[in-house]
Protein backbone atom coordinates (compact mmCIF):
# COMPACT_ATOMS: atom_id res chain seq x y z
CA UNK A 1 0.00 0.00 0.00
CA UNK A 2 2.81 2.44 0.80
CA UNK A 3 4.12 2.18 -2.76
CA UNK A 4 1.01 4.16 -3.77
CA UNK A 5 0.46 3.09 -7.38
CA UNK A 6 -2.65 3.64 -9.45
CA UNK A 7 -5.70 1.55 -8.57
CA UNK A 8 -7.32 -0.90 -10.97
CA UNK A 9 -11.00 -0.10 -10.55
CA UNK A 10 -12.38 -2.60 -13.10
CA UNK A 11 -15.46 -4.49 -11.84
CA UNK A 12 -14.59 -8.05 -10.86
CA UNK A 13 -16.89 -11.04 -11.28
CA UNK A 14 -15.82 -13.98 -9.12
CA UNK A 15 -15.21 -17.34 -10.79
CA UNK A 16 -17.05 -20.48 -9.79
CA UNK A 17 -15.25 -23.55 -8.47
CA UNK A 18 -16.18 -27.17 -7.95
CA UNK A 19 -17.44 -28.83 -4.77
CA UNK A 20 -17.97 -32.52 -5.52
CA UNK A 21 -18.07 -33.31 -1.80
CA UNK A 22 -21.16 -31.10 -1.48
CA UNK A 23 -22.71 -32.31 -4.72
CA UNK A 24 -22.51 -35.86 -3.34
CA UNK A 25 -24.80 -34.86 -0.47
CA UNK A 26 -27.65 -35.23 -2.94
CA UNK A 27 -28.03 -38.96 -3.51
CA UNK A 28 -30.11 -39.38 -6.64
CA UNK A 29 -29.77 -43.18 -6.50
CA UNK A 30 -31.62 -43.29 -3.21
CA UNK A 31 -33.75 -40.14 -3.55
CA UNK A 32 -32.15 -38.70 -0.45
CA UNK A 33 -30.79 -35.33 0.55
CA UNK A 34 -28.25 -34.95 3.34
CA UNK A 35 -29.49 -32.73 6.16
CA UNK A 36 -26.21 -30.82 6.22
CA UNK A 37 -27.29 -28.83 3.17
CA UNK A 38 -29.78 -27.00 5.40
CA UNK A 39 -27.46 -25.62 8.06
CA UNK A 40 -23.78 -26.01 7.22
CA UNK A 41 -21.97 -22.68 6.94
CA UNK A 42 -19.34 -23.90 4.45
CA UNK A 43 -22.07 -25.26 2.17
CA UNK A 44 -23.92 -21.97 2.43
CA UNK A 45 -20.80 -20.05 1.40
CA UNK A 46 -20.40 -22.42 -1.55
CA UNK A 47 -24.02 -21.71 -2.52
CA UNK A 48 -23.32 -17.98 -2.61
CA UNK A 49 -20.40 -18.64 -4.95
CA UNK A 50 -21.76 -21.45 -7.12
CA UNK A 51 -25.45 -20.60 -7.28
CA UNK A 52 -26.13 -16.97 -6.37
CA UNK A 53 -22.91 -15.82 -8.06
CA UNK A 54 -23.96 -17.37 -11.37
CA UNK A 55 -27.69 -18.02 -11.70
CA UNK A 56 -30.15 -15.59 -13.27
CA UNK A 57 -31.91 -14.10 -10.23
CA UNK A 58 -35.21 -12.25 -10.15
CA UNK A 59 -34.81 -8.48 -9.75
CA UNK A 60 -38.04 -6.66 -10.44
CA UNK A 61 -41.12 -6.32 -12.61
CA UNK A 62 -40.77 -3.75 -15.37
CA UNK A 63 -44.00 -2.11 -14.19
CA UNK A 64 -42.27 -1.08 -10.94
CA UNK A 65 -39.87 1.20 -12.79
CA UNK A 66 -41.65 2.64 -15.83
CA UNK A 67 -39.75 5.94 -16.20
CA UNK A 68 -36.10 7.01 -16.45
CA UNK A 69 -34.53 7.11 -12.99
CA UNK A 70 -37.23 4.93 -11.40
CA UNK A 71 -35.54 2.34 -9.21
CA UNK A 72 -35.96 -0.45 -6.69
CA UNK A 73 -33.44 -1.96 -4.35
CA UNK A 74 -33.21 -5.70 -3.96
CA UNK A 75 -30.82 -8.56 -3.18
CA UNK A 76 -28.95 -11.01 -5.35
CA UNK A 77 -27.88 -13.62 -2.85
CA UNK A 78 -26.52 -11.48 -0.03
CA UNK A 79 -25.48 -8.65 -2.35
CA UNK A 80 -27.47 -5.43 -2.28
CA UNK A 81 -28.36 -4.15 -5.77
CA UNK A 82 -30.09 -1.14 -7.30
CA UNK A 83 -32.26 -1.79 -10.35
CA UNK A 84 -32.85 1.40 -12.31
CA UNK A 85 -34.48 2.40 -15.59
CA UNK A 86 -32.02 4.20 -17.87
CA UNK A 87 -32.67 7.26 -19.98
CA UNK A 88 -32.74 5.08 -23.11
CA UNK A 89 -35.45 2.85 -21.61
CA UNK A 90 -33.19 -0.11 -20.86
CA UNK A 91 -32.84 -1.44 -17.33
CA UNK A 92 -29.52 -1.37 -15.50
CA UNK A 93 -28.57 -2.98 -12.20
CA UNK A 94 -25.60 -2.16 -9.99
CA UNK A 95 -24.11 -3.22 -6.70
CA UNK A 96 -25.29 -0.82 -4.04
CA UNK A 97 -21.79 -0.20 -2.77
CA UNK A 98 -19.49 2.75 -3.28
CA UNK A 99 -16.10 1.90 -4.85
CA UNK A 100 -14.45 4.32 -2.40
CA UNK A 101 -14.97 2.67 1.00
CA UNK A 102 -17.92 0.44 0.20
CA UNK A 103 -20.74 2.39 1.81
CA UNK A 104 -24.17 1.90 0.27
CA UNK A 105 -25.08 4.66 -2.14
CA UNK A 106 -28.85 4.16 -1.99
CA UNK A 107 -30.65 3.91 1.33
CA UNK A 108 -34.28 3.70 0.28
CA UNK A 109 -36.15 0.67 -1.01
CA UNK A 110 -37.63 2.28 -4.10
CA UNK A 111 -38.08 5.65 -5.73
CA UNK A 112 -39.10 7.60 -8.79
CA UNK A 113 -37.03 9.65 -11.19
CA UNK A 114 -33.68 9.41 -9.39
CA UNK A 115 -31.05 11.65 -10.89
CA UNK A 116 -28.25 9.61 -9.47
CA UNK A 117 -26.98 8.13 -6.24
CA UNK A 118 -24.73 10.11 -3.93
CA UNK A 119 -22.68 8.27 -1.36
CA UNK A 120 -23.30 9.58 2.09
CA UNK A 121 -19.73 9.15 3.30
CA UNK A 122 -17.49 11.38 1.16
CA UNK A 123 -20.01 12.51 -1.41
CA UNK A 124 -19.00 10.55 -4.49
CA UNK A 125 -21.85 10.87 -6.94
CA UNK A 126 -22.96 8.22 -9.43
CA UNK A 127 -25.26 8.59 -12.42
CA UNK A 128 -28.21 6.25 -12.95
CA UNK A 129 -25.90 4.49 -15.41
CA UNK A 130 -23.53 3.73 -12.53
CA UNK A 131 -20.69 5.97 -13.72
CA UNK A 132 -18.93 8.24 -11.27
CA UNK A 133 -20.02 11.71 -12.37
CA UNK A 134 -18.34 13.71 -9.67
CA UNK A 135 -16.89 13.87 -6.24
CA UNK A 136 -16.33 17.36 -5.11
CA UNK A 137 -14.57 19.18 -7.90
CA UNK A 138 -12.76 21.35 -5.45
CA UNK A 139 -10.72 18.43 -4.12
CA UNK A 140 -10.40 15.47 -6.47
CA UNK A 141 -10.09 17.52 -9.64
CA UNK A 142 -6.97 19.11 -8.29
CA UNK A 143 -5.34 15.65 -7.98
CA UNK A 144 -3.69 14.99 -11.37
CA UNK A 145 -3.70 11.23 -10.76
CA UNK A 146 -7.42 10.87 -10.11
CA UNK A 147 -9.06 8.85 -12.90
CA UNK A 148 -12.73 9.61 -12.55
CA UNK A 149 -13.74 7.94 -15.80
CA UNK A 150 -12.36 4.58 -14.61
CA UNK A 151 -14.70 4.41 -11.63
CA UNK A 152 -18.21 2.98 -11.66
CA UNK A 153 -20.68 1.17 -9.46
CA UNK A 154 -20.20 -2.51 -10.33
CA UNK A 155 -22.80 -3.39 -12.97
CA UNK A 156 -24.68 -6.66 -12.62
CA UNK A 157 -22.99 -8.56 -15.47
CA UNK A 158 -26.17 -9.26 -17.45
CA UNK A 159 -29.71 -7.94 -17.08
CA UNK A 160 -32.62 -9.14 -19.22
CA UNK A 161 -36.41 -9.33 -19.16
CA UNK A 162 -38.90 -12.05 -19.92
CA UNK A 163 -42.45 -10.74 -20.47
CA UNK A 164 -42.15 -8.05 -17.83
CA UNK A 165 -40.01 -9.94 -15.31
CA UNK A 166 -36.47 -8.61 -14.98
CA UNK A 167 -33.61 -10.94 -14.06
CA UNK A 168 -29.88 -10.42 -13.57
CA UNK A 169 -26.75 -12.54 -13.23
CA UNK A 170 -23.29 -11.74 -11.88
CA UNK A 171 -21.75 -14.12 -14.42
CA UNK A 172 -20.71 -12.49 -17.72
CA UNK A 173 -20.49 -16.00 -19.21
CA UNK A 174 -23.96 -17.12 -18.19
CA UNK A 175 -26.17 -18.22 -21.11
CA UNK A 176 -28.93 -15.85 -22.21
CA UNK A 177 -32.03 -15.59 -20.02
CA UNK A 178 -33.98 -17.43 -22.74
CA UNK A 179 -31.50 -20.33 -22.65
CA UNK A 180 -31.55 -20.32 -18.87
CA UNK A 181 -35.31 -20.97 -18.93
CA UNK A 182 -35.29 -23.23 -21.96
CA UNK A 183 -38.81 -24.48 -22.73
CA UNK A 184 -39.86 -23.67 -19.15
CA UNK A 185 -41.24 -20.40 -20.54
CA UNK A 186 -44.14 -22.49 -21.83
CA UNK A 187 -45.25 -22.78 -18.20
CA UNK A 188 -44.31 -19.23 -17.17
CA UNK A 189 -46.63 -17.98 -19.89
CA UNK A 190 -49.61 -19.35 -17.98
CA UNK A 191 -49.27 -16.32 -15.71
CA UNK A 192 -47.27 -13.93 -17.87
CA UNK A 193 -49.07 -14.24 -21.18
CA UNK A 194 -52.69 -15.25 -20.69
CA UNK A 195 -53.75 -11.75 -21.76
CA UNK A 196 -52.43 -9.62 -24.63
CA UNK A 197 -51.78 -6.55 -22.47
CA UNK A 198 -49.37 -8.31 -20.15
CA UNK A 199 -48.92 -8.06 -16.40
CA UNK A 200 -47.91 -5.70 -13.61
CA UNK A 201 -47.08 -5.74 -9.91
CA UNK A 202 -49.48 -3.85 -7.66
CA UNK A 203 -49.28 -2.57 -4.11
CA UNK A 204 -45.57 -2.60 -3.37
CA UNK A 205 -43.33 -5.21 -1.82
CA UNK A 206 -43.98 -6.88 1.53
CA UNK A 207 -40.87 -8.04 3.38
CA UNK A 208 -40.55 -10.38 6.32
CA UNK A 209 -38.01 -12.71 7.90
CA UNK A 210 -38.31 -16.42 8.44
CA UNK A 211 -35.68 -18.41 10.33
CA UNK A 212 -35.30 -21.19 7.82
CA UNK A 213 -32.91 -22.32 5.13
CA UNK A 214 -33.83 -20.78 1.76
CA UNK A 215 -34.18 -24.19 0.10
CA UNK A 216 -37.17 -25.26 2.20
CA UNK A 217 -39.53 -22.66 0.72
CA UNK A 218 -37.95 -23.12 -2.73
CA UNK A 219 -38.53 -26.91 -2.68
CA UNK A 220 -41.99 -26.39 -1.22
CA UNK A 221 -43.08 -24.21 -4.14
CA UNK A 222 -41.26 -26.28 -6.76
CA UNK A 223 -43.44 -29.27 -6.16
CA UNK A 224 -44.84 -29.89 -2.70
CA UNK A 225 -48.61 -29.67 -2.85
CA UNK A 226 -48.73 -32.69 -0.58
CA UNK A 227 -48.24 -30.47 2.46
CA UNK A 228 -51.39 -28.45 1.77
CA UNK A 229 -53.64 -31.26 2.88
CA UNK A 230 -52.07 -31.32 6.35
CA UNK A 231 -50.40 -27.92 6.86
CA UNK A 232 -53.17 -25.75 5.45
CA UNK A 233 -56.14 -27.85 6.49
CA UNK A 234 -57.46 -25.57 9.21
CA UNK A 235 -56.74 -22.35 7.32
CA UNK A 236 -58.50 -23.70 4.26
CA UNK A 237 -61.47 -24.71 6.36
CA UNK A 238 -61.73 -21.21 7.74
CA UNK A 239 -61.62 -19.61 4.31
CA UNK A 240 -63.43 -22.15 2.17
CA UNK A 241 -65.80 -23.53 4.78
CA UNK A 242 -64.52 -26.99 3.86
CA UNK A 243 -61.18 -28.72 4.02
CA UNK A 244 -58.48 -29.41 1.45
CA UNK A 245 -59.40 -32.71 -0.15
CA UNK A 246 -56.97 -34.71 -2.19
CA UNK A 247 -59.46 -35.81 -4.79
CA UNK A 248 -58.75 -37.35 -8.19
CA UNK A 249 -57.84 -33.98 -9.67
CA UNK A 250 -54.43 -34.31 -7.98
CA UNK A 251 -53.81 -37.60 -9.66
CA UNK A 252 -55.56 -37.99 -12.98
CA UNK A 253 -55.52 -34.44 -14.21
CA UNK A 254 -52.34 -33.27 -12.60
CA UNK A 255 -48.62 -33.36 -13.25
CA UNK A 256 -45.21 -32.04 -12.27
CA UNK A 257 -42.84 -30.56 -14.85
CA UNK A 258 -39.15 -29.79 -14.36
CA UNK A 259 -36.53 -28.13 -16.56
CA UNK A 260 -33.04 -27.13 -15.33
CA UNK A 261 -34.32 -27.37 -11.74
CA UNK A 262 -37.18 -24.93 -12.38
CA UNK A 263 -40.40 -26.70 -11.62
CA UNK A 264 -44.15 -26.39 -11.57
CA UNK A 265 -46.74 -28.70 -10.09
CA UNK A 266 -50.31 -28.23 -11.16
CA UNK A 267 -53.67 -29.79 -11.53
CA UNK A 268 -56.13 -28.58 -14.12
CA UNK A 269 -59.07 -27.56 -11.94
CA UNK A 270 -59.19 -23.98 -13.32
CA UNK A 271 -59.74 -22.08 -10.06
CA UNK A 272 -58.58 -24.11 -7.03
CA UNK A 273 -55.92 -21.61 -5.96
CA UNK A 274 -58.04 -18.57 -6.70
CA UNK A 275 -60.79 -19.94 -4.44
CA UNK A 276 -58.49 -19.87 -1.42
CA UNK A 277 -58.23 -16.08 -1.66
CA UNK A 278 -61.76 -16.07 -0.28
CA UNK A 279 -63.58 -13.90 -2.87
CA UNK A 280 -66.22 -15.68 -4.98
CA UNK A 281 -66.17 -12.70 -7.34
CA UNK A 282 -62.54 -13.50 -8.22
CA UNK A 283 -63.42 -17.08 -9.02
CA UNK A 284 -66.21 -15.88 -11.32
CA UNK A 285 -63.77 -13.53 -12.96
CA UNK A 286 -61.22 -16.28 -13.67
CA UNK A 287 -63.99 -18.45 -15.15
CA UNK A 288 -65.15 -15.54 -17.31
CA UNK A 289 -61.66 -15.22 -18.78
CA UNK A 290 -61.25 -18.90 -19.53
CA UNK A 291 -62.20 -18.89 -23.21
CA UNK A 292 -59.92 -15.98 -23.94
CA UNK A 293 -57.01 -17.70 -22.19
CA UNK A 294 -57.79 -20.91 -24.05
CA UNK A 295 -57.53 -19.14 -27.41
CA UNK A 296 -54.13 -17.84 -26.39
CA UNK A 297 -52.63 -20.77 -24.52
CA UNK A 298 -54.61 -23.85 -25.44
CA UNK A 299 -56.77 -25.90 -23.10
CA UNK A 300 -54.15 -27.37 -20.76
CA UNK A 301 -52.54 -24.07 -19.89
CA UNK A 302 -55.83 -22.16 -19.75
CA UNK A 303 -56.97 -24.62 -17.08
CA UNK A 304 -53.78 -23.89 -15.11
CA UNK A 305 -54.38 -20.13 -14.81
CA UNK A 306 -56.33 -20.30 -11.52
CA UNK A 307 -55.61 -23.91 -10.61
CA UNK A 308 -54.01 -25.42 -7.52
CA UNK A 309 -50.43 -25.01 -8.59
CA UNK A 310 -47.06 -23.74 -7.44
CA UNK A 311 -43.80 -22.92 -9.16
CA UNK A 312 -40.15 -22.19 -8.40
CA UNK A 313 -37.72 -20.75 -10.91
CA UNK A 314 -34.32 -22.03 -9.78
CA UNK A 315 -32.93 -21.07 -7.36
CA UNK A 316 -35.18 -18.84 -5.24
CA UNK A 317 -37.97 -17.16 -7.22
CA UNK A 318 -41.41 -18.67 -6.68
CA UNK A 319 -45.05 -18.00 -7.37
CA UNK A 320 -48.51 -19.41 -7.02
CA UNK A 321 -50.56 -19.19 -10.19
CA UNK A 322 -54.16 -18.46 -9.27
CA UNK A 323 -53.20 -16.79 -6.03
CA UNK A 324 -51.02 -14.31 -7.87
CA UNK A 325 -48.36 -14.12 -5.17
CA UNK A 326 -44.79 -13.79 -6.48
CA UNK A 327 -41.83 -13.99 -4.15
CA UNK A 328 -38.10 -14.29 -3.65
CA UNK A 329 -36.57 -16.23 -0.75
CA UNK A 330 -33.50 -14.07 -0.13
CA UNK A 331 -30.85 -16.02 1.76
CA UNK A 332 -29.42 -14.44 4.92
CA UNK A 333 -27.13 -17.14 6.20
CA UNK A 334 -27.87 -20.86 6.28
CA UNK A 335 -30.80 -20.52 8.65
CA UNK A 336 -32.53 -17.29 7.80
CA UNK A 337 -34.29 -15.75 4.83
CA UNK A 338 -35.79 -12.41 4.02
CA UNK A 339 -38.97 -12.97 2.07
CA UNK A 340 -39.93 -10.39 -0.57
CA UNK A 341 -43.46 -10.75 -1.95
CA UNK A 342 -45.49 -8.98 -4.62
CA UNK A 343 -48.91 -9.39 -6.20
CA UNK A 344 -49.03 -9.86 -9.97
CA UNK A 345 -52.13 -9.08 -12.02
CA UNK A 346 -53.00 -8.61 -15.66
CA UNK A 347 -52.88 -4.96 -16.65
CA UNK A 348 -56.26 -5.32 -18.32
CA UNK A 349 -58.07 -6.47 -15.17
CA UNK A 350 -60.74 -4.09 -13.82
CA UNK A 351 -59.54 -2.10 -10.79
CA UNK A 352 -61.84 -3.82 -8.31
CA UNK A 353 -60.55 -7.23 -9.43
CA UNK A 354 -56.96 -6.08 -8.94
CA UNK A 355 -57.91 -4.83 -5.51
CA UNK A 356 -59.40 -8.21 -4.58
CA UNK A 357 -56.18 -9.95 -5.61
CA UNK A 358 -54.18 -7.47 -3.53
CA UNK A 359 -56.31 -8.05 -0.46
CA UNK A 360 -56.51 -11.77 -1.06
CA UNK A 361 -52.74 -12.24 -1.25
CA UNK A 362 -52.34 -10.09 1.87
CA UNK A 363 -54.75 -12.26 3.85
CA UNK A 364 -53.20 -15.53 2.72
CA UNK A 365 -49.56 -15.09 1.71
CA UNK A 366 -48.04 -12.23 3.70
CA UNK A 367 -46.52 -12.02 7.19
CA UNK A 368 -50.05 -11.78 8.58
CA UNK A 369 -51.47 -14.25 6.08
CA UNK A 370 -53.04 -17.53 7.06
CA UNK A 371 -51.06 -19.80 4.76
CA UNK A 372 -47.71 -18.03 5.07
CA UNK A 373 -47.79 -18.58 8.82
CA UNK A 374 -48.69 -22.24 8.36
CA UNK A 375 -45.70 -22.76 6.09
CA UNK A 376 -43.15 -20.59 7.87
CA UNK A 377 -43.42 -22.44 11.15
CA UNK A 378 -42.79 -25.78 9.48
CA UNK A 379 -39.75 -24.50 7.60
CA UNK A 380 -38.28 -23.01 10.77
CA UNK A 381 -38.59 -26.30 12.64
CA UNK A 382 -37.24 -28.29 9.68
CA UNK A 383 -34.18 -26.04 9.68
CA UNK A 384 -33.61 -26.12 13.45
CA UNK A 385 -34.23 -29.81 13.97
CA UNK A 386 -31.90 -30.80 11.13
CA UNK A 387 -29.04 -29.15 12.97
CA UNK A 388 -28.92 -31.61 15.88
CA UNK A 389 -25.58 -33.37 15.95
CA UNK A 390 -26.97 -36.87 15.75
CA UNK A 391 -30.04 -35.74 13.83
CA UNK A 392 -27.92 -34.35 11.02
CA UNK A 393 -26.61 -37.82 10.24
CA UNK A 394 -30.06 -39.29 9.63
CA UNK A 395 -31.50 -39.81 6.15
CA UNK A 396 -34.30 -37.70 4.66
CA UNK A 397 -36.93 -39.17 2.33
CA UNK A 398 -37.55 -37.53 -1.09
CA UNK A 399 -38.93 -40.63 -2.78
CA UNK A 400 -42.63 -40.09 -3.37
CA UNK A 401 -43.50 -41.11 -6.93
CA UNK A 402 -40.13 -42.52 -8.03
CA UNK A 403 -41.75 -44.59 -10.78
CA UNK A 404 -44.32 -42.05 -11.95
CA UNK A 405 -42.29 -40.50 -14.78
CA UNK A 406 -44.22 -40.32 -18.05
CA UNK A 407 -43.33 -39.32 -21.61
CA UNK A 408 -46.05 -36.71 -22.15
CA UNK A 409 -44.88 -35.56 -25.58
CA UNK A 410 -47.19 -32.52 -25.36
CA UNK A 411 -45.61 -31.15 -22.21
CA UNK A 412 -42.07 -29.70 -22.19
CA UNK A 413 -39.57 -31.02 -19.64
CA UNK A 414 -39.36 -33.97 -17.30
CA UNK A 415 -42.96 -34.90 -16.54
CA UNK A 416 -44.33 -36.94 -13.66
CA UNK A 417 -47.91 -38.02 -13.32
CA UNK A 418 -49.91 -36.59 -10.44
CA UNK A 419 -49.04 -33.48 -8.52
CA UNK A 420 -48.66 -35.34 -5.19
CA UNK A 421 -45.10 -36.27 -5.93
CA UNK A 422 -41.53 -35.48 -4.82
CA UNK A 423 -40.34 -35.48 -8.45
CA UNK A 424 -39.73 -31.75 -8.88
CA UNK A 425 -38.01 -31.59 -5.51
CA UNK A 426 -35.66 -34.36 -6.61
CA UNK A 427 -34.88 -32.38 -9.76
CA UNK A 428 -34.44 -29.20 -7.74
CA UNK A 429 -31.75 -30.85 -5.58
CA UNK A 430 -30.20 -32.53 -8.59
CA UNK A 431 -29.85 -29.07 -10.11
CA UNK A 432 -28.42 -27.82 -6.83
CA UNK A 433 -25.82 -30.60 -6.97
CA UNK A 434 -25.00 -29.76 -10.60
CA UNK A 435 -24.26 -26.18 -9.53
CA UNK A 436 -22.03 -27.49 -6.73
CA UNK A 437 -20.16 -29.85 -9.05
CA UNK A 438 -19.68 -27.91 -12.26
CA UNK A 439 -17.54 -24.81 -12.73
CA UNK A 440 -18.67 -24.19 -16.32
CA UNK A 441 -21.88 -23.58 -18.25
CA UNK A 442 -21.50 -26.21 -20.93
CA UNK A 443 -21.67 -28.94 -18.27
CA UNK A 444 -24.43 -27.07 -16.43
CA UNK A 445 -26.63 -26.78 -19.50
CA UNK A 446 -26.29 -30.39 -20.63
CA UNK A 447 -26.57 -32.13 -17.26
CA UNK A 448 -29.33 -34.45 -16.10
CA UNK A 449 -31.84 -31.67 -15.36
CA UNK A 450 -31.67 -30.35 -18.95
CA UNK A 451 -34.98 -30.82 -20.77
CA UNK A 452 -35.38 -34.00 -22.81
CA UNK A 453 -35.69 -33.37 -26.55
CA UNK A 454 -39.33 -33.38 -27.59
CA UNK A 455 -40.60 -33.04 -31.10
CA UNK A 456 -42.77 -29.98 -30.70
CA UNK A 457 -43.05 -28.93 -27.09
CA UNK A 458 -45.93 -26.67 -26.50
CA UNK A 459 -48.98 -25.34 -28.18
CA UNK A 460 -48.98 -27.52 -31.28
CA UNK A 461 -50.04 -30.50 -29.24
CA UNK A 462 -53.12 -28.91 -27.72
Amino acid at each position, binding site marked *: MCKAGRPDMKPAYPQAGSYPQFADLVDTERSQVDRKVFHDEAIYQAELRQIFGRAWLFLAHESQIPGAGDFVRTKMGEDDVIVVRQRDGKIGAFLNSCPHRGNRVCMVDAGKKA*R*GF*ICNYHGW*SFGIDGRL*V*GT*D*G*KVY*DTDPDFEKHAITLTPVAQVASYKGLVFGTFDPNAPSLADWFGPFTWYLDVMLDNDPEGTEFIGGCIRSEIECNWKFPAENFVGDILHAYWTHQSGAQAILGGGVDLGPQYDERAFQASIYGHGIETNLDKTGNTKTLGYPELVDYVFSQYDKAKDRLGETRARMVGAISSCTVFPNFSFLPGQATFRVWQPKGPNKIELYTWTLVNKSMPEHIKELYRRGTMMTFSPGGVFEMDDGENWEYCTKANEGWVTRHQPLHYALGISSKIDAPDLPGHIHRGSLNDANQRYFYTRWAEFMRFDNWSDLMTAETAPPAKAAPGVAAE
Partner: protein
Amino acid sequence: MSLTRLCALADLGPDKITRVEVEGRSPVALALADGGAVAFDDTCPHADESLSQGWVEDGRIVCAVHFAEFEIGSGKAHNAPIGCGRLRFYPTEIRDGAVHADLAD
Protein backbone atom coordinates in the same frame (compact mmCIF):
# COMPACT_ATOMS: atom_id res chain seq x y z
CA MET B 1 -20.91 44.54 -26.75
CA SER B 2 -18.31 42.10 -27.97
CA LEU B 3 -19.34 38.67 -29.16
CA THR B 4 -17.26 35.50 -28.90
CA ARG B 5 -17.87 32.66 -31.37
CA LEU B 6 -18.44 29.46 -29.39
CA CYS B 7 -19.46 26.69 -31.81
CA ALA B 8 -21.67 25.76 -34.75
CA LEU B 9 -25.37 25.65 -33.90
CA ALA B 10 -25.44 22.20 -35.52
CA ASP B 11 -23.07 20.92 -32.79
CA LEU B 12 -25.74 21.37 -30.12
CA GLY B 13 -28.27 18.61 -29.58
CA PRO B 14 -31.49 18.26 -27.68
CA ASP B 15 -31.12 17.01 -24.12
CA LYS B 16 -27.38 17.54 -23.95
CA ILE B 17 -25.09 20.25 -22.68
CA THR B 18 -22.01 21.13 -24.70
CA ARG B 19 -18.86 22.46 -23.07
CA VAL B 20 -16.69 24.94 -24.95
CA GLU B 21 -13.19 25.99 -23.88
CA VAL B 22 -12.64 29.71 -24.19
CA GLU B 23 -9.18 31.28 -24.23
CA GLY B 24 -8.40 33.24 -21.08
CA ARG B 25 -11.46 32.33 -19.03
CA SER B 26 -13.35 29.41 -17.55
CA PRO B 27 -15.26 27.13 -19.98
CA VAL B 28 -18.72 28.02 -21.21
CA ALA B 29 -21.64 25.59 -21.57
CA LEU B 30 -24.32 25.65 -24.26
CA ALA B 31 -27.72 24.05 -24.47
CA LEU B 32 -30.80 24.21 -26.65
CA ALA B 33 -33.78 25.69 -24.82
CA ASP B 34 -36.72 27.98 -25.53
CA GLY B 35 -36.22 27.40 -29.25
CA GLY B 36 -32.69 28.80 -29.23
CA ALA B 37 -29.23 28.41 -27.74
CA VAL B 38 -28.51 29.42 -24.15
CA ALA B 39 -24.99 30.01 -22.77
CA PHE B 40 -23.85 29.78 -19.16
CA ASP B 41 -20.79 29.00 -17.06
CA ASP B 42 -19.85 25.35 -17.39
CA THR B 43 -18.48 25.34 -13.86
CA CYS B 44 -21.21 24.55 -11.35
CA PRO B 45 -21.45 27.26 -8.66
CA HIS B 46 -21.75 24.53 -6.03
CA ALA B 47 -18.54 22.51 -6.22
CA ASP B 48 -16.90 23.34 -9.53
CA GLU B 49 -18.03 20.22 -11.40
CA SER B 50 -18.76 20.51 -15.12
CA LEU B 51 -22.40 21.18 -15.96
CA SER B 52 -21.84 19.50 -19.34
CA GLN B 53 -22.48 16.23 -17.50
CA GLY B 54 -25.97 17.46 -16.69
CA TRP B 55 -29.13 17.97 -18.69
CA VAL B 56 -32.05 20.33 -19.35
CA GLU B 57 -35.32 19.57 -17.60
CA ASP B 58 -38.47 21.72 -17.36
CA GLY B 59 -36.74 25.02 -18.05
CA ARG B 60 -33.83 24.33 -15.76
CA ILE B 61 -30.23 23.21 -16.10
CA VAL B 62 -29.67 20.21 -13.82
CA CYS B 63 -26.20 19.51 -12.45
CA ALA B 64 -25.49 15.78 -12.66
CA VAL B 65 -23.25 15.75 -9.63
CA HIS B 66 -25.37 16.94 -6.69
CA PHE B 67 -28.49 17.73 -8.69
CA ALA B 68 -28.72 21.51 -8.18
CA GLU B 69 -31.18 23.02 -10.67
CA PHE B 70 -30.71 26.45 -12.23
CA GLU B 71 -33.50 28.46 -13.85
CA ILE B 72 -32.63 29.19 -17.44
CA GLY B 73 -32.17 32.96 -17.76
CA SER B 74 -32.05 34.08 -14.14
CA GLY B 75 -29.72 31.30 -12.98
CA LYS B 76 -31.55 31.07 -9.66
CA ALA B 77 -30.68 27.80 -7.87
CA HIS B 78 -33.26 25.26 -6.67
CA ASN B 79 -32.85 22.00 -4.72
CA ALA B 80 -29.20 22.89 -4.40
CA PRO B 81 -26.72 21.85 -1.71
CA ILE B 82 -25.92 24.47 0.92
CA GLY B 83 -23.69 27.27 -0.29
CA CYS B 84 -24.59 26.98 -3.95
CA GLY B 85 -24.68 30.36 -5.70
CA ARG B 86 -26.55 31.56 -8.77
CA LEU B 87 -25.52 30.34 -12.24
CA ARG B 88 -24.40 33.04 -14.63
CA PHE B 89 -26.04 33.11 -18.10
CA TYR B 90 -24.76 35.07 -21.11
CA PRO B 91 -26.70 36.68 -23.96
CA THR B 92 -26.39 34.73 -27.22
CA GLU B 93 -26.80 35.46 -30.88
CA ILE B 94 -26.71 33.18 -33.95
CA ARG B 95 -24.55 34.43 -36.81
CA ASP B 96 -23.78 32.42 -39.93
CA GLY B 97 -25.01 29.24 -38.26
CA ALA B 98 -22.71 29.69 -35.27
CA VAL B 99 -23.53 30.45 -31.65
CA HIS B 100 -21.95 33.64 -30.31
CA ALA B 101 -22.17 34.98 -26.78
CA ASP B 102 -21.37 38.20 -24.97
CA LEU B 103 -19.00 37.03 -22.26
CA ALA B 104 -18.09 40.50 -20.94
CA ASP B 105 -17.98 40.85 -17.13
